[in-house]
């Protein structure tokens, strides 16, 4: 007569093995089965959860039910992504805009060109001369 092994009992405890003919006749295995049934019941003793904690959790849930969007992460993410896109698009477009100053200030350009024609050396040299003036 082969007794049930620990492995057999574990499977039985979790519903993976049915009682068989051996168990009907073997008092030793039946005793073990009863012991395990009690041990199993003890494992259900759930811990106490603090009432304050549960009450706070319920308040949070009620808040979320009353203000469904407040904790809605996708909305927050959506907003952040939209802002980021706006910045990226803004930065991308900026270099292609021509400067309005350069286009409209033609008079300044013509007077600079005229001044360059009247002097024999480049305008950029002038500050160097000033260094040696007394």
């Amino acid at each position: 007569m082969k007794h049930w092994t620990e492995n057999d009992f574990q499977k039985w405890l979790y519903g993976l093995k049915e009682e068989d003919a051996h168990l009907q006749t073997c008092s030793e295995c039946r005793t073990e089965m009863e012991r395990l049934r009690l041990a199993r019941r003890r494992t259900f003793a759930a811990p106490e959860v603090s009432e304050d904690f549960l009450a706070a959790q319920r308040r949070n849930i009620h808040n979320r039910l009353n203000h469904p969007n407040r904790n809605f992460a996708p909305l927050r993410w959506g907003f952040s992504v939209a802002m980021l896109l706006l910045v990226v698009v803004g930065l991308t477009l900026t270099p292609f805009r021509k400067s309005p100053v350069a286009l409209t200030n033609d008079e300044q350009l013509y007077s600079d060109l005229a001044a360059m024609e009247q002097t024999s050396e480049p305008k950029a040299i002038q500050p160097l001369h000033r260094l040696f003036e007394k």
Partner: protein
Amino acid sequence: MMGAMADRLEVSLDRGASTREFGAWMTSEQKRIFLLCKRMLQDIGEADSATQDTFVKAWQALNRPESKELDNPASWLTRIAVNTCLDRLRSRRWQFWRKRPAPEDEETILRLAPSDGPSAEDRIFAAQIGDRLESALDKLSLRQRAVFALRHYEDRSLAEIAGILELDVGTVKVHLFRAIEKLREELHDLYFRDRGTK
């Protein structure tokens, strides 16, 4: 036992369930759902968020115009909780920086249930093995963990678990079998430590 407690609640949550009805139902299910999330996620803070998410999702689903009457609200809620936890566990794989919860936080929230059965010493020892078993759930795949948690802690039948996880019973058996194999050492200490070897 806790699963049975939930099943006894004949909650009729029809369309447009009032906040008060929902609140009462939530109070009756809250601890069970929180502990299930705690066991799945092994993190008090995450379990708290997952429990909140579960009830918010349940409320939203119940208030959808196309929502149907529920045959078994407890199982339906359990499915939402398990899926919420599985989603969190999947995204956690990428969170290498995740902070582990401080044990003292846990102690202020969870305490040993008073019992007139075994001695205080035995209960403390049982709690230690229980903690070890909970930590060992990390060894399981996500599906194995869900199946084992529902079977071990909620004592649900294999058919019920199959219904909750939307799997067939054969698949549930395979997951459970593998889970038990991986937890062999912890389960041995939980059930057979005091027994003389056969």
